[in-house]
């Protein structure tokens, strides 16, 4: 035990952080200053500016990308509006054309119908006139046939041929009532 303590004492003591201050304190502080100064210079003048620049670059890239995206989005919105306006115009145009065409067609149909009707009416009137004429003619023919028949019947029955005026009077009396 005694030799161990002696060894410790020779190596610097039982509690190096305090025991060795006298022998190594200056050296520790010196190397602390040297190494820390190197670290500080490297950090302050080389590495942190680089890291900061990378972060700033990224922020800039994100900001410009967002701005670009916003511009594109606005452009797309404008295009959509334009497209909608064009669609609306085209639709109105189409409606116009359609209604115009319909009106034209209606007018044409009405005219055609009227013309046909007039023609038909004319033909109908002609046909009716022809019918009444034919009937009148037929009626006169019937009277003549009846006179002939009555004259022939009377001649056969009586043997005397009746006068034409008498027959005519008799027939017209019988037919006219």
């Amino acid at each position, binding site marked *: 035990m005694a030799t161990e303590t002696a060894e410790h004492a020779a190596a610097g003591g039982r509690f190096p952080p305090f025991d060795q201050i006298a022998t190594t304190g200056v050296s*520790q502080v010196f190397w602390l200053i040297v190494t820390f100064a190197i670290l500080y210079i490297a950090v302050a003048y080389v*590495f942190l500016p680089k*890291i900061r620049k990378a972060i700033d670059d990224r922020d800039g890239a994100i900001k410009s990308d967002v701005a670009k995206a916003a511009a594109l989005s606005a452009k797309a919105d404008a295009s959509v509006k334009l497209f909608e306006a064009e669609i609306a115009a085209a639709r109105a145009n189409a409606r116009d054309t359609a209604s115009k065409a319909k009106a034209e067609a209606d007018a044409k149909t009405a005219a055609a119908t009227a013309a046909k009707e007039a023609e038909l009416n004319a033909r109908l009137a002609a046909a009716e006139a022809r019918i009444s004429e034919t009937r009148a003619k037929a009626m006169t023919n019937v009277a003549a046939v009846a006179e002939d028949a009555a004259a022939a019947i009377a001649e056969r029955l009586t043997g005397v041929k009746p006068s034409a005026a008498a027959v005519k009077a008799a027939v017209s009396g019988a037919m006219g009532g």
Partner: protein
Amino acid sequence: MRIATDPMHQFQITKLFDLNLGGYDVSFTTSALWMVIGVLLVIGVLALATAKSATIPNRIQSLGEIWYGFIAGIVKDVNHAPGKPFIPLVFSLFSFIFIANIIGMFPYFFTTTSHIAVTGFMAIFTIGLVVVVGLIKKGLGFFKIFVPSGVPVVLLFIVTPIEIISFLSRPISLGMRLFANMLGGHVALKVFAGFVPSLAVALGGVGMLMGGLLVMPLIVGVTALEFLVAFLQAYVFAMLTCVYLNDALGEAH
């Protein structure tokens, strides 16, 4: 055997080669070696992280940006806009302490932050910087931090000495906190780890079984806790640096 069981041996500084500068012994020691290694590690990781600055970062670049964002966030939250020039300093302090603490978690590696000379100097430097920056920014108005506004004049005779004492105790608490946390954690780890061989020697196979089943999980837990402490102490040091800097930068309170 002494290395394996003595919990203080890990804090021993040994000289690697002699160096004398202006009459001062600034020999290159294990402590200096691990400071150099730590700084090289930090610079190496930062060099990888900034090798190519892509708009879409890869993993190591993301790490660098998260690291920077973490520190810049602390400075921004505590010091707001006037703290911006101090981001590199806080970043360096945090990184230096963090890497030293993490290096200390590896067996046989030396923990530079477990020596009061290192942490104490860092704390004195930080408070000295606060005073210098305060005097530059506010002139003698900087000393208003010792005279809280809105306090009756009679009370000022009590409050001002208290404020001065609290200000002077800052470098002590700042340096001592980091040093004690690292030292205490490593000693605890070593002592707990020492239980395993001690039990094995004392009780043979049964002791080895007990050490393996009971002590080993404890060591694993304490190790995990020490990793947390390693980060937390670096964070606390950086945070307190910002808080103290606020006395020099912010509005007088």
